């Protein structure tokens, strides 16, 4: 299977690097290849460093951090030959890059894009959005986001934060938005794929400050019904992931990834006789966004 790709974008100073620092230290068991512009602000706990050379730092937890000094496409071409060594690729887009374009480049090298997450600075993003030099750039970045992370929420007054969130809804409607401080984002929200252990018995659980809803069925889903379900999910749903059986192709299991408003559905592997699972799906959202009865009804209608 091809390694899924997540791009972390946002203007200089928004906190992309602190998000990545957290990710590298709390990798949730995933072997992540993190591609950064430079090591300047990357701050890896010395005890975590297994080895380091000029452009690469290998971590004891299986992650690797690599600079893009040789150019993004060169590094991606090299990673193609190391797919077995990793579970996920994360690219830090440069402060002025359109992260969606970076994602397209990654996809062209065979790494399916599963999410574009844009980090914004709660204090400065509105001013930046009208800046003479970078206003257009910041606006394009917001429009490219599947998921927005409003960082440094502790540095603005609550009323100001509410006004910022309202502005974001106006500016980029339908883009799920999380708030955080110190660049902390749950790895499960940002990029964790579904693992066998994550088949919750409880239909509704908690996931840090999020709510989640799990769904399991032995009946294959129809692709068109699944699409309708995904389209109907409210913006508060920030993440969905699942392994699915589709009536349209009973020979394969499918991996569903939804980050913010982006959904990707890719063949995972061929269905085998010992395969213990049918369709299982986890939906994660901000408090109040999960309506388990309604969701079950929507998906139930698919069957």
């Amino acid at each position: 299977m091809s390694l899924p790709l997540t791009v972390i974008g946002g203007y200089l100073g928004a906190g992309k690097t602190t998000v990545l620092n957290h990710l590298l230290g709390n990798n949730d068991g995933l072997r992540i290849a993190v591609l950064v512009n430079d090591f300047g602000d990357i701050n890896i706990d010395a005890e975590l460093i297994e080895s380091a050379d000029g452009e690469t730092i290998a971590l004891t937890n299986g992650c690797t951090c690599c600079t893009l000094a040789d150019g993004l496409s060169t590094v991606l071409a090299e990673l193609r030959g190391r797919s077995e060594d990793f579970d996920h690729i994360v690219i830090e887009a440069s402060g002025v890059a359109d992260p969606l374009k970076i994602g397209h480049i990654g996809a062209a090298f065979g790494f399916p894009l599963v999410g574009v997450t844009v980090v914004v600075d709660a204090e400065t993003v509105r001013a930046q959005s009208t800046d003479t030099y970078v206003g257009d750039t910041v606006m394009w970045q917001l429009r490219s986001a599947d998921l927005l992370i409003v960082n440094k929420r502790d540095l603005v007054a609550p009323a100001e934060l509410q006004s910022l969130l309202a502005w974001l809804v106006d500016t980029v409607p339908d883009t799920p938005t999380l708030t955080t401080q110190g660049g902390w984002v749950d790895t499960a929200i940002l990029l964790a794929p579904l693992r066998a252990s994550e088949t919750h018995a409880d239909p509704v659980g908690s996931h840090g400050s999020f709510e989640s809803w799990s769904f399991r069925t032995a009946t294959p889903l129809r692709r068109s019904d699944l699409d309708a379900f995904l389209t109907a999910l409210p913006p508060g749903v920030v993440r969905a992931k699942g392994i699915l059986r589709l009536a349209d192709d009973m020979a394969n299991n499918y991996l569903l990834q939804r980050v913010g408003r982006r959904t990707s559905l890719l063949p995972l592997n061929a269905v085998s006789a010992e395969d213990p699972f049918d369709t299982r799906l986890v939906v994660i959202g901000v408090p109040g966004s999960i309506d388990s009865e309604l969701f079950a009804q929507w998906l139930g209608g698919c069957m």
Partner: protein
Amino acid sequence: MNDDEINGDGINDVAADFSQGRISRRDALKRLAALGMGAAAGSAFIAACDRKPGASSEGASQNPADTIYRNGTVLTMVDDRRQAEAVAVAAGKILAVGSEADVMATKGANTVIVDLAGHTLMPSFIDAHGHFMNALQVVKWANVQGVPAGPISSIADFVPVLQEHVRKLALKPGDWIIGYGYDRSNLVEGRELNIDDLDPAFPDNPIMLIHSSNHGAVLNTAAFKAVGYNENTPTPAGGIIARKPGTNIPYGLIMETAFLPILTNAPKPSERELLDTLDEAQKIYTRAGVTTVQEGATAAKDLRVLRKGADEGLLYLDVVSLPLFLEIPELATDFAPDFVGGPADIPDEAVKAFGAYRNRLKLQGIKFIVDGSPQGKTAFWTQPLLTPGPDGQPDWRGQPVIPPETIHKTMAAVHAKGLQVFCHANGDAAIDLAIDGMRATGVKAADDRRTVIVHSQCMRPDQLDPYVELGFTPSFFAAHTFYWGDEHLANLGPQRADFISPMASAFAKGLRCSNHTDFSVTPMEPMRIMWASMVRTSKKGVVLGADERIDNWQALKALTTEAAWQIFEEKTKGSLEVGKLADMVILDANPLTAAPEALLDIAVLETFKEGKSVYRKEP
């Protein structure tokens, strides 16, 4: 640290002052001692400089000319005495220049007299901005640019051009054929080249003709096979794979994300292979009468190739390298192995490597890049274009390619270290960014730092005064008025397009400006860019800004004296004056008096680097 020391001119200053009789031997020795030269070395150095030229018959008899050039036009490029009758050269330098009688006074028993036969001798041209590393590549590639930059004007032209390339490089079946400069807009048919045009003549050689934007290429079937593209290959997001009508078969053109992995995975020449092309690459310049070459955006790995070539004695032209600011951390480790830091932390050990030639390679300054290109619509303007952006965006005015904070911080650090700043800026917003960044350093024109704004194309009239105030010196790309003038009119409208590369306005403000080819973006043709700066006429024949046309003298200065001054080499290059290097070119007609259209017919007959012939036209 002052600029003289940085540029290694301190000792040369003393030499010039002494040899031209401005200071005594004793004063010269004192100044050499202050520059760290011991007494014995100082005496020997002065003895070597003691060559009193021209007027002094004593000097002439002791140090006769190696060669005297006479019976032609001598274009000195000196303001108050533009032309002379003859030139004498000794030990690679100008020994005398002036009247035939004065120059002939330097004749000795072994002096060679060269009869110019009415041709014109002038200082060789200086490549004010271009990319020498591209020359190392394109000598192995077929030129498939449109007329006049290349030989292509129709679909039928490709096969014979590529066959000739195969013959010239003795390519075997299965070898890749790479071409550069492909663009549908050059073809009378107005359609893309496709596999059916190429396959019959090239069934076995994979072909890749790189698009003029460098963002795509046309491939033939053998090439598609080699890279694994077929009818089952999906078109990637953000990319183009043209398909044969009625089928899903890749038809030739691939662009953007469909092209990038192909380009990345293409075999790269080894360091040895690159070094082996240095001779052929330098010939691109000597054929054009150019003897000072620029590598104007040098990556650290490219600098290693150039340093190795220099150390192996493979350079016979002067190569001026401008390392890219983002490459400073990697570059720094070549000079300071323990270096850790960012672009703004350039270590002193690396700074010391700048400003003087070593084996014909000189690091002159740091190159910043603020935006892209106007024809690619990736430049950064304050006002939107009249046409959509590169991805169809409305109200598109481009974007900076680096966060302004990063550029400004690094600019300040580089400037504080005494290094010269070269800043690529095409759109007026990018130029504003350069002005803001340098103004924040507190620099003034009187500081003589010669900040070069590379391209400086889409200026606003109000930006000229800050250039004067801050001591900026633009290196213009006037040939854009010809190559892309029609596109600029459509994208920018006449008012903005007419002020592209405003050379007349800049000269009128007292700014010193050069004019460049940006090789290999356009061909190495000094007469073409001189012509363009004088006529400013597009391919369709539309004049862009008649007021910004300059005269022959200004146009020639932009290729010689001004270009030398921009890289702090005005004491040794740019004009034919006693003591300067005998870097010269013989042309078959005088470009100072030629009508603009006649410039394009002027041929380079011979090129000299420090008196030595490095190119001679076949009779």
